[in-house]
């Protein structure tokens, strides 16, 4: 079992595309399910280290420890779900290419133990994200993609700068090696490096001050793509950002700054969504809000809070995917994503899915989102961060306001269109909600996984070199 499979298999599938160009949707499903299975089989062999060595230190190192394994499993799961969702819509070459590449990108991002590799996967995932944005091939899509590219190119400039500065200072790129030697760098240069990395990853991880492009991009792309962005892309960047943060032993004041940025992200996003009427923008803002909470929680560098944040990443990814996929169904039917469409259709099952996923998103019991939120709150409380608790609770009300405004589609009324939802989609969405419900009712196994992951994330560089 090699970690390279997670990168090589999708690439292989891309190279062999001409062989099965009529059945890309099936191949996509098979590929993602295979990857999911592979990820699940890794459970017992963690942590895993894989080197493709030219000569030390010139080696490409992949590391799979508890935290990255959790995310990898999540990513492959979400990719599988999304590809299963698209199964019904037949062959789509552009989608296949872009989403498979995205898979490669995000898997590589979390697996890489080498800063330059991270840069490469950063670019791969970015390019695939640009492609995904432009999938619809209309003015909005291209406009969004262009915006995205401008911002993304800017981010990669800074990331590149940071990497170059590191290499210039200490001559290594392996994360573990960097962590060991980072302290040798002159403090001012250290700060410059950290700042460049922060700008580079912060833009992509959608943190406040750097995230004003997000709503437009989500709006430009398809709803189903939104689920990939929201569940995979931003989370992988966020993971790398915090992985580096923990490894490089940043100062408490810098951690505090990250927490502040997280809180600001949360507040600004939730308030922005309050008045929005475009459902994709609303979901984008909601994603930003969750990222804000996750950032806030991770910034405490506390085992319990980090576990809670990982839990939130997981539950948010599943809930958001369900919501975006449901929205995709609506968008395909109405050719609009204005929030009024929620009041215009009649499909009890779909409404139920939206409602329950929304509840989980809000952190309302008995769904898994609640467990995450409760863990975050209790974690914050045990650190005596009562201000943060109050902030999260207060702003959650704003979140509830706009989410429940969407849910008023539950009201009976005239002028409703009956919306047909295929059985396969019902199964898929139902599975996601059941997943949320199941982990909400029995959170212990997942919590334990998250705790283990948090321990390995915070434990610093435990991979022997």
């Amino acid at each position, binding site marked *: 079992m090699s970690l390279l499979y997670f990168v090589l298999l999708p690439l292989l599938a891309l190279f062999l595309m001409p062989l099965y160009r009529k059945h890309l949707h099936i191949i996509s499903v098979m590929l993602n399910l295979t990857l999911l299975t592979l990820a699940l089989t890794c459970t017992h062999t963690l942590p895993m280290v894989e080197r493709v060595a030219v000569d030390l230190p010139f080696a490409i190192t992949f590391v799979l420890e508890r935290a990255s394994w959790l995310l990898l499993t999540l990513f492959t799961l979400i990719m599988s779900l999304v590809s299963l969702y698209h199964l019904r819509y037949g062959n789509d070459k552009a989608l296949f290419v872009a989403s498979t590449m995205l898979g490669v990108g995000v898997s590589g991002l979390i697996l890489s133990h080498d800063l330059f590799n991270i840069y490469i996967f950063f670019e791969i995932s970015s390019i695939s994200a640009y492609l995904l944005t432009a999938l619809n091939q209309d003015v909005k899509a291209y*406009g969004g993609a262009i915006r995205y590219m401008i911002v993304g190119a*800017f981010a990669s400039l800074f990331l590149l700068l940071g990497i*170059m500065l590191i290499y210039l200072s200490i001559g290594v790129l392996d994360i573990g090696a960097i962590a060991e030697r980072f302290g040798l760098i002159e403090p001012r240069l250290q700060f410059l490096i950290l700042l460049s990395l922060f700008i580079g990853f912060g833009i992509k991880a959608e943190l406040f001050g750097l995230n004003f492009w997000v709503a437009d991009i989500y709006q430009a792309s398809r709803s189903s793509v939104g689920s990939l962005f929201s569940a995979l892309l931003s989370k992988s960047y966020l993971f790398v950002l915090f992985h580096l943060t923990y490894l490089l032993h940043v100062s408490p004041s810098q951690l505090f700054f990250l927490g502040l940025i997280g809180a600001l992200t949360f507040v600004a996003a939730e308030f922005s969504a309050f008045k929005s*009427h475009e459902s994709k923008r609303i979901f984008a803002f909601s994603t930003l809000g969750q990222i804000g909470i996750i950032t806030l929680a991770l910034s405490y560098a506390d085992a319990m809070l980090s576990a809670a944040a990982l839990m939130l990443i997981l539950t948010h990814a599943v809930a958001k995917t369900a919501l975006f996929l449901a929205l995709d169904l609506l968008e395909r039917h109405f050719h609009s994503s204005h929030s009024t469409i929620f009041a215009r259709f009649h499909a009890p099952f779909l409404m139920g899915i939206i409602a329950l996923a929304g509840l989980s998103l809000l952190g309302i019991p008995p769904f898994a989102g609640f467990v995450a939120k409760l863990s975050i709150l209790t974690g914050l409380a045990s650190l005596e961060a009562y201000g943060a608790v109050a902030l999260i609770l207060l702003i959650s009300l704003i979140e509830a306001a706009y989410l429940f405004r969407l849910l008023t589609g539950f009201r009976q009324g005239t002028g409703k269109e009956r919306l047909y939802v295929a059985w396969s989609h019902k199964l898929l969405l139902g599975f996601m909600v059941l997943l949320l419900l199941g982990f909400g009712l029995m959170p212990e196994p997942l919590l334990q996984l998250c705790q283990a992951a948090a321990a390995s994330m915070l434990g610093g560089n435990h991979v022997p070199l």
Partner: protein
Amino acid sequence: MFDAFGSSALLHQAITLLCFIIFGVALFGVLVKKNLFNIFLAFSIAEAALFLFFIGNHYAAQLQAPILFEGLSRFDPAVMVDPLPQAMILTTIVIGIAVLALALTFVIRYYKLTGHMRIDEMDELGEDR
């Protein structure tokens, strides 16, 4: 600032200064130019500035190029210039070209659909669109 990088300190400082001037010019282009093509061109310039900065700072007049040929069977930092930056820059250039190509494709498509490629006239996204 970069004293640790060997003996060509002055050269390195000059290169660094130059690169940052170029980088600044490029950023100016990114932030001020309205034509999408110009903007992406500016990004290319910025990237080039970074490459130059990186490679330039690894240049050492007294060292050899890191090419393996007869008599030289392994990398020796004392004799050769560090080969890794070159590999990295090559990779990055490739990526940069790919991104630029994709960007220009999008710009062309966008131009065909809208008839303009000015960033200040892009108003297709936002609330109520």
